């Protein structure tokens, strides 16, 4: 009983972090924007839900929607000055945004209760069904994971997604020459990805029932970054697979019965080792990025078509 409950808890975390990985993959893996502040948007989603549900008694459906929108809005505001910057500058500025968000969570006592955190976040409830921790909430999280996976696949394998990959491949100049506005598309994917992170944050808040600032740190961003690199940059499925691997590894180490002084560094060791192994044996990740394939080319027309090149 104890173990099965733990397994369900871990599976739920996989679903939630899976959404977070999918969202960062869109921004970083597909578009190549080195977003080092992704945890901030996860945090905005989690805190928004926590505050709306505990202090204002807003129903869950609206809370999650508002969390999503607010994370997207914060991303939009962040994006206006930063998305014109070149890669490395963007990384530095987003890292700063992450730190700012964390210190807001920590110091805005009246709203976030600072380091005390916000406890007693009610369960998700929709159409009279309460998604209690365990199988019901796991199911809900999986539904969202499936939706986000579907959404991201549709985005990646579309004209929109091809523009994103084009931006990644040469800093935007190439797509500009083809008449695509790189700034606009960077903004769109940044807002979509961050909104998705807000959604994951909202689910996280209702799953754990408690939020405090220590969750939403650079460490979390790095964790997800690692997942994407190992899973296969640009591949949403890889992101989910690697999330499962990492979450179970991370929590698994905890239950080996080792003292914390050994278990904590061991975790880092394992992650480091995995990253090195991946670089050596699977540089494109466990599930490498897939190119879009069209049905086999229709048979070439008879004879040289050169002359009828269309006039």
């Amino acid at each position, binding site marked *: 009983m104890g173990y099965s409950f733990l397994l369900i808890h871990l599976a739920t975390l996989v679903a939630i972090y899976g959404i977070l990985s999918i969202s960062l993959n869109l921004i970083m893996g597909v578009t190549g924007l080195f977003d080092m502040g992704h945890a901030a948007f996860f945090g905005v989603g989690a805190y928004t839900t926590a505050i709306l549900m505990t202090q204002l008694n807003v129903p869950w459906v609206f809370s999650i929607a508002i969390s999503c929108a607010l994370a997207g809005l914060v991303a939009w505001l962040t994006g206006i000055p930063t998305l014109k910057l070149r890669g490395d500058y963007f990384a530095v500025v987003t890292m700063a945004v992450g730190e700012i968000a964390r210190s807001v969570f920590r110091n805005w006592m009246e709203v976030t209760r600072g380091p005390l955190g916000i406890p007693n976040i009610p369960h998700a409830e929709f159409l009279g069904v309460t998604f209690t921790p365990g199988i019901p909430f796991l199911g809900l999280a999986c539904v969202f994971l499936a939706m986000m996976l579907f959404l991201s696949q549709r985005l990646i394998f579309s004209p929109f997604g091809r523009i994103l990959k084009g931006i990644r491949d040469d800093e935007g100049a190439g797509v500009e020459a083809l*008449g695509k506005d790189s700034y606009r598309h960077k903004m769109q994917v940044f807002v979509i990805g961050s909104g998705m992170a807000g959604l994951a944050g909202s689910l996280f808040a209702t799953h754990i029932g408690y939020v405090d600032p220590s969750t939403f740190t650079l460490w979390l961003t790095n964790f997800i970054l690692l997942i994407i690199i190992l899973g296969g940059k640009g591949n949403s499925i890889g992101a989910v697979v690697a999330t499962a691997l990492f979450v179970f590894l991370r929590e698994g180490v905890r239950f080996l019965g080792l003292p914390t002084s050994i278990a904590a560094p061991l975790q880092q060791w394992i992650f480091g080792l995995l990253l090195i192994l991946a670089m050596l044996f699977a540089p494109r990740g466990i599930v490498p990025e897939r190119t879009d394939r069209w049905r086999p080319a229709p048979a070439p027309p008879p004879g040289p078509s050169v002359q009828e090149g269309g006039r």
Partner: protein
Amino acid sequence: MTFLRTESLTKKFDGLCAVDHVTFEVLPGIILGLIGPNGSGKTTLFNLITGFSQITEGQVYFDDRPIGGLPAHTIAEMGIARTFQLVRVFQSMTVMENMMLGFKGHVGEAPWKAIRRGQQYVQQDAKALAKAYDLLDVVGLRQAANERAENLPYAEQKMAEIARTMMGDPRLIMLDEPASGIAPTLVNGLLDYIRRLRDQQGKTIVIIEHDMRVIMNLCDRIVALDHGAKICEGSPGEVSRDPSVIEAYLGGG
């Protein structure tokens, strides 16, 4: 109405004047060659016209409309396509993905339409695909459609890049040294292709090229630059006999 015209176009980098009050005109339906020694400002001139570099002074008119100062993507959208000196196909994408990206005005460029995939989306996809295969047939790359661009030889990447610009139905095509890095035996095929664009499709082409043999038998008209300034303009015959051009190339006093 003039097709493309630059007026006193100037670009200064700190003290250096890379393009110095260049005024010239491109008539529709011709191939215009842009020549000059290394560092004479040819590529910078391309960058100014296509919006990849900020103009210091002067103006560019396309269809009599001033386009100087517009963002690069807007200028491309208006019908000026360009290639780059170093090939710029997207390396991680397949040839076909590259081609599809060259298609202009697909509704699926907006994320919500990409998710929804309505009837219009499907129709445009089919149209783009058919067009891409047609263009790949012309340059002989149909079989390579699903190959990642990075796996193709350089010459084929260059051909793919030119074919990709054609996906957007440009009216003016600006080619920056298309023949560089291509084996001499393949250059003739490339030149034939460029000529066909003019003769069969009425495209206007501006081309930067170092190989004089290429320039002389391809172009209808030539503009010669040296140290950023236009030193001569005329038919290939006129330009090749011009003393200032001979001096710029052979390095007189």
